[in-house]
């Protein structure tokens, strides 16, 4: 399956926004595990996901062509 990855803040320094071919998987928890394997710098970092512009609180179902944003802690204001 394919997903659109968007990264922000310090995460964008080692993970570019990109279309990404990933093994089939069913939810965002599995995706986190996968991403942490591909981008070991993510391990131990605080970050949140947004799935198709909705904040992910608990694991969400993942579908082909979904857009996933990876966001480090906010620092607006």
């Amino acid at each position, binding site marked *: 399956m394919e997903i659109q990855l968007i990264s922000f803040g*310090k995460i964008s320094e080692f993970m570019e926004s990109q279309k990404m071919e990933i093994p089939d998987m069913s939810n965002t928890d599995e995706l986190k595990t996968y991403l942490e394997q591909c981008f070991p710098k993510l391990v131990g970092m605080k970050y949140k996901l*947004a799935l198709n512009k909705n904040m992910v609180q608990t694991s969400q179902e993942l579908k082909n062509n979904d857009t996933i944003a990876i966001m480090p802690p906010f620092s607006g*204001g």
Partner: protein
Amino acid sequence: MSEKKIRNIFIEGAISPSFIADSIAGHSSKTTIGGHSIFMGQVRNDEVDGKLVTAIEYTAYEDLALEKMHEIREEIFARYPLHCMHVHHSLGNIKTGEICLFVFTSAAHRKPAIDACTEIVERIKAELPIWGKEIFDNKTHQWKENK
């Protein structure tokens, strides 16, 4: 479903005092207002390990930030008897001494204006996907984190 009017809060570059003055002046015809509360965030020249911050470069996940700000706006209007509320946040490079956040609430009485303004500022910092990259005088940088 209720109709959603998503307002843009983002401004490219710093927020100027004259922009703020125009916003204040625009309220003089609203004669049911008795109190206005304003918060402004300004970029500080913090020192970190001997390096000085010269600017903060702001980026945001704009679509999500505007959706979230819309939610905050609806909740604030549901809880406080406000006449109006205005929020502006800078994107891009904001130098030390420049204003990067402007929150402006107005109500018949002071308490709701003040309480709502304070709550909006807290929620902007905690909930909006915005990132500040502190640029030091030696061209290195560090990513801010709100506490």
